[in-house]
């Protein structure tokens, strides 16, 4: 902390954009936040600020900040409120939650949060915690859990040292992942080729040497087509496949499981079996000593077996250039060239991102791209240990004692609230989580979920779309108004940062942690339940977790502190290898990264009625629904727009700037159209995060479905397929 005149400059970390924690210097004058600017990091690649963070003063002093607790007076969503005291609000909430808990069990209370402090309360009450990751971010983790045995395998495919080519698979890093983008830019400036595969021509695509327009959701077919070219020419990295993947392991033809030693000699080990090319016999795989066959079919113990690699090659063979091109609508020559470059420009960094995972089979797209990276020898084993620190924070410090909340995937919450399956959620507390705006199939949420809930609490800084449906609304603080400690959120960032209290809470707002403490006591939790922010920070620091080694409060008060690097040796899978073939996915017919047509593609029968693929992408102008009400950003991005190709517009008699309605059986969104050449014909886009009232009618999430993918559910949790929906668009009356 330094003083200059009467302006205090306090270092903190930005809490606006999820996925990044940029360091910022907050200037405070007479107790008011007057300015922010970027703060330095020991590694200058992390010095960063964006337009959103520079609007901090607009966020903190926004005239619409919630100022005091409110009680609903009219019907839910009607907007009639009465100001109440904190005591009344807390007493009401505590007694209502206690009553519901007594009647329906602890699991009937549920939290959906973006503020971690509530984990303590939910765990102490053994209540339900709705995991927010399933609204868009769960398919990639599902896929990496299968392939790598860890949910966040990004760095395995993003070679950090001197890539010869970077390939963006549904990734707009220039707008949404600044630290990744800097690495891409640095690679580009060192001469790497940049390829962007996307149905939209994004800012990132504008920087690419090659832009490839793809039919949405067909990335797995593209990856398989590329693999087939590589296999046909024998360009695969045989050493890598043999040494680091399940490629040489024999797979039983009768049940699809890996052949084990015990299958040959009953009672023998669980060791995986390979075909030894020297002895021409099956053998347990040991590093060295054996010469495993990578290809071929072998009869072992009366069972026909193939190597996992052979099975992959067989699958890829179903995607010759003609077929891959027909599915993806990418010219065969483009696919062929990309295939060759995946080998000749090694190392190739594959950036797998949100666009890749938000179709119904996004996990398979993700796995297919990973498999391509593996067979071409573009997996970064070394770099992995350098960066993966994001999730090292000891999650146990957030819990109360040894109690755990009950996790529930967000898409499972629909059935829980509507049908009581597998149990009924009766009370929902949304903390900094704009559920009613952000989750798919918004009409179902508002018309079927909301009425089923006995009690809804929202703690937030604004009267959000969610708060409008609450029974009690609690005003909370922005990240400038309370102390917290922050793990590095971006996978690349190694820094732990302190978020000090920069200014006093505004109006009657209170930090969420205080609310948690007050509710806990009122609900009869023991005296040791309340935990101050200072105690929480101490708790994390003294957790004994390796990520906290050498980190003290004194050091954090001076600036960001680097966590020790975390090393993973090999892969955390059952086999200890990269599993492009997965036994556990056999029952879903997904033991290999197969291509499956998107649930709502333009080639499905329902496309006759709704021919346009609808996506809802993220932008530089906001973070989810946060910042959609910030005047400075609205000057640049005034209102929701439907992006549409001139060809699609013309076919519908739509002109640029017209009011249009995008609709399907689930709902509609009425808004202005932006007709331009930045989007693939047949695809329309509305940037996500706009509030309900900012649309003339409906909202961007009325058009999406909440269908559960059972394979994803089995591995981790199902993802919302927000980029896999069909709509039609007409000119508004």
């Amino acid at each position: 902390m330094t003083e200059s005149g009467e302006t205090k400059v306090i270092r903190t970390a930005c809490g606006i954009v999820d996925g990044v924690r940029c360091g910022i210097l907050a200037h405070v004058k007479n107790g008011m936040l007057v300015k922010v600017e970027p703060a330095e990091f020991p590694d200058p690649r992390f010095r960063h600020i964006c337009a959103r963070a520079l609007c901090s003063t607009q966020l903190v002093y926004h005239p619409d900040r919630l100022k005091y607790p409110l009680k609903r007076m009219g019907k839910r969503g009607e907007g009639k409120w009465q100001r109440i005291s904190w005591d009344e609000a807390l007493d009401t909430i505590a007694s209502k939650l206690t009553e519901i808990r007594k009647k329906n069990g602890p699991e009937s209370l549920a939290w959906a949060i973006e503020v971690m402090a509530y984990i303590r309360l939910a765990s102490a009450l053994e209540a339900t915690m709705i995991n927010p990751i399933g609204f868009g971010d769960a398919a990639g983790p599902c896929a990496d859990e299968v392939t790598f045995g860890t949910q966040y395998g990004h760095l395995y495919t993003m070679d950090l040292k001197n890539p010869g080519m970077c390939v963006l698979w549904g990734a707009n890093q220039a707008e949404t992942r600044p630290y990744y983008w800097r690495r891409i830019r640095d690679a580009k400036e060192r001469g790497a080729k940049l390829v962007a595969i996307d149905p939209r021509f994004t800012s990132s695509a504008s920087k690419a040497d090659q832009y490839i327009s793809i039919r949405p959701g067909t990335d797995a077919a593209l990856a398989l087509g590329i693999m087939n070219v590589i296999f046909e020419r024998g360009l695969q990295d045989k050493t890598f496949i043999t040494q680091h993947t399940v490629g040489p392991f024999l797979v039983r033809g009768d049940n699809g499981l890996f052949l084990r030693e015990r299958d040959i000699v009953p009672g023998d080990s669980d060791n995986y079996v390979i075909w030894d090319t020297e002895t021409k016999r099956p053998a347990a795989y040991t590093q060295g000593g054996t010469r495993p066959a990578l290809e071929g079919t072998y009869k072992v113990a009366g069972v026909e077996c193939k190597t996992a690699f052979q099975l992959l090659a067989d699958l890829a063979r179903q995607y010759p250039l003609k077929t891959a091109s027909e599915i993806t609508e990418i010219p065969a020559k483009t696919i062929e060239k990309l295939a060759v470059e995946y080998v000749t420009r090694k190392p190739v960094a594959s950036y797998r991102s949100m666009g890749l995972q938000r179709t119904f089979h996004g996990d398979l797209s993700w796995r297919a791209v990973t498999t391509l990276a593996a067979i071409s020898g573009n997996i970064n084993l070394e770099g992995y240990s350098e960066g993966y620190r994001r999730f090292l924070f000891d999650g146990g410090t957030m819990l109360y004692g040894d109690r755990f909340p009950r996790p529930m995937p967000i898409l499972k919450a629909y059935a829980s609230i509507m049908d009581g399956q597998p149990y009924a959620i009766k009370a929902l507390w949304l903390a900094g989580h704009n559920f009613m705006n952000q989750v798919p199939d918004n009409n179902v949420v508002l018309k079927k979920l909301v009425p089923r809930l006995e009690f809804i609490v929202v703690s937030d800084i604004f009267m959000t779309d969610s708060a409008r449906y609450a029974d009690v609304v609690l005003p909370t603080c922005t990240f400038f108004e309370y102390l917290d400690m922050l793990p590095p959120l971006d996978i690349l960032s190694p820094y732990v940062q302190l978020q000090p209290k920069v200014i006093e809470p505004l109006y009657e707002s209170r930090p969420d942690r205080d609310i948690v403490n007050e509710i806990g006591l009122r609900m009869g939790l023991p005296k040791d339940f309340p935990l101050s922010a200072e105690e929480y920070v101490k708790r994390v620091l003294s957790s004994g977790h390796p990520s906290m080694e050498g980190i003290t409060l004194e050091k954090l008060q001076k600036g960001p502190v680097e966590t020790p690097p975390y090393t993973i040796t090999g892969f955390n899978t059952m086999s200890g290898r990269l599993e492009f073939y997965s036994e556990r996915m056999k029952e879903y017919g997904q033991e290999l990264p197969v291509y499956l047509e998107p649930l709502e593609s333009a080639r499905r029968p329902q496309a006759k009625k709704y021919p346009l693929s609808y996506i809802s992408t993220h932008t530089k102008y906001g973070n989810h629904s946060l910042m959609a009400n910030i005047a400075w950003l609205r000057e640049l991005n005034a209102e929701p727009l439907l992006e549409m190709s001139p060809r699609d517009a013309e076919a519908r008699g739509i002109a640029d700037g017209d009011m249009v309605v995008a609709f399907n059986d689930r709902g509609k969104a009425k808004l202005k159209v932006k007709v331009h050449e930045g989007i693939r014909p047949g695809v329309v886009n509305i940037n996500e995060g706009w509030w309900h009232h900012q649309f003339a009618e409906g909202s961007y999430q009325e058009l999406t479905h909440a269908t559960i993918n059972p394979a994803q559910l089995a591995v981790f949790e199902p993802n919302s397929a927000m980029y896999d929906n069909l709509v039609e668009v007409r000119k508004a009356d």
Partner: protein
Amino acid sequence: MAKRYGLVIDLERCIGCNTCIVACKLENGLEKGSWIRVDTIGGNHRDSPGGKYPNVSMHFLPVLCMHCDKPPCLDACPLEAIFKRTDGIVMVDEKKCDGCQACLQACPYGVLVYDAKKNIVRKCTLCAHRIEKGLEPFCKICCEAEAMYFGDLNDPSSSAVKVITTRKSALLKPEAGTKPAVRYCPTRQGRIE
């Protein structure tokens, strides 16, 4: 040699994040508008490419006061409210300006802003108030893409000069003969406008 402050903007690095626009608002207390804008070079909208999909292209062009050697705005001002400092920064004397806006017509870059509330013309000062404290312009220090280089164009050791001596750079609308202190490193296709 006298100082000549200027900026070099790398258009291949610029990602159109608009951070400079908001930075300018914050630093200069501009409730509405900004003294820097980011043009999309390509299509008919912000963030829109030109061409026919998928053969399209787009880049971003931040435009601010060029702090010209020969500022047409200065010549156009009937009240001599626009002046050039010895360090090359072109300023509006807000006390002398009567809001006639003759300078707006004269400027080939469209970077002067009429403030109706105050009835004066305002514009980028290259953050002269920061430069006087040894700081760099706020848009430059906030540039998310690290696409801006600031310095004394007469000082061979300044980062701005280092960039223009090692890389191709060009001026915006050189035909106007204004000799700007803002230079651009073109995109990889060699484009500025």
